[in-house]
């Protein structure tokens, strides 16, 4: 799918989706992360929980994406390779749900891609504390805030949604604006193209 077609669909779909208050969205997410920080001791666990939540969202998101793009007459053509998938995710998917557009860079071997987000709707008003500033939590170890992947939800969403269309991927948050970088980067690596169950069984006969 060419970039411009994906982008155009994205814009059109964004216009048709019901909107929520961006601040409410960011603040709700912020309180969710704060709760997680209170509940869990280690940053790794928090990151993992965020990813799991994202996964549950992702598996449901993809059907909505496919259904609504059909409904509004913008069929997403079948992707021929990972590059097409990346374009659709970045230009159409992200724009439809979040109103932001991402840039995509493919890895040289074609099995991975990076999504670059210049604005992050989840991280409005957010500032992460520096490790040295925080007093030790009662009874717990000092948390290393540099390891917190605040927007790890996206990684889960990508993993969940791509799994529903038979692409098993692993996603990792590489660079985060909240940690002082210039851009948010998520690396998506294709692990396996899954085969639907039914086909294989009948091939055996």
């Amino acid at each position, binding site marked *: 799918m060419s970039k411009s077609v994906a982008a155009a669909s994205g814009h059109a779909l964004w216009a048709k989706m019901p909107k929520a208050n961006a601040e409410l969205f960011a603040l709700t997410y912020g309180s969710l992360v704060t709760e997680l920080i209170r509940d869990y001791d280690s940053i790794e666990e928090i990151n993992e929980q965020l990813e799991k939540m994202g996964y549950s969202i992702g*598996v449901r998101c993809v059907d909505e994406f496919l259904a609504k793009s059909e409904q509004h007459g913008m069929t997403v053509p079948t992707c021929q390779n990972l590059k097409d998938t990346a374009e659709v995710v970045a230009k159409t998917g992200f724009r439809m749900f979040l109103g932001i557009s991402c840039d995509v860079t493919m890895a040289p071997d074609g099995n991975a891609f990076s999504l670059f987000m210049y604005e992050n709707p989840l991280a409005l008003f957010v500032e992460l504390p520096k490790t040295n500033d925080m007093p030790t939590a009662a009874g717990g170890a000092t948390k290393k805030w540099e390891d917190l992947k605040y927007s790890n939800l996206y990684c889960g969403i990508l993993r969940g949604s791509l799994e529903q269309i038979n692409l098993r991927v692993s996603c990792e948050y590489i660079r985060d604006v909240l940690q002082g970088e210039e851009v948010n980067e998520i690396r998506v690596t294709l692990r396996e193209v899954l085969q639907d169950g039914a086909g294989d069984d009948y091939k055996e006969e």
Partner: protein
Amino acid sequence: IEYSTLSYNPIIHKNKNKGTNHPKKMGFLHLFVVNKSGGLIHHRPLGDRAPTIGTNEWLRIGSTFHSLHAIAAEASPLRLLGNKNAYGADDGIEEINAGGILLKSFQTRTGVKFVITADPGTADIDYVLREIYVLYTDCALKDPFYELEMPIRCELFTQAVDLLVERVEKSGAGSFKQR
């Protein structure tokens, strides 16, 4: 699969060719939804004339259809790459046109199958199938208590489906753009 319809009753076929008018009963009969693994996750009568079918029978129908859908792609003389059709979903049965019944199936790219049975000649079935997919995403998937692949027990979904069918039947045939 582009060609899968067989008429089980050749007599009716001949009558059509002669141009004989036979009274057309138009109406939706049943909706059923099959998940990725072939389990039935929803079934609902869409009209008064839908025959009553027991729950066990429904489960059998769901799994049988799922298997037939897959076998049809294997048995088809025209095999598509990876058994995926142009839309990107698994190739398989799209329509069964038998003597007294019309069955249309729509498989999403995530593997969920929406199937509607109706009287032959009922219009707008494709439109209804796609709208039901949207209702599935809005009502069933967004229900926090709904687990994926499990039976759909959402009031909102069933109400919305009923309203949709009512709206389509009221508007008359052919008033919705066929994709």
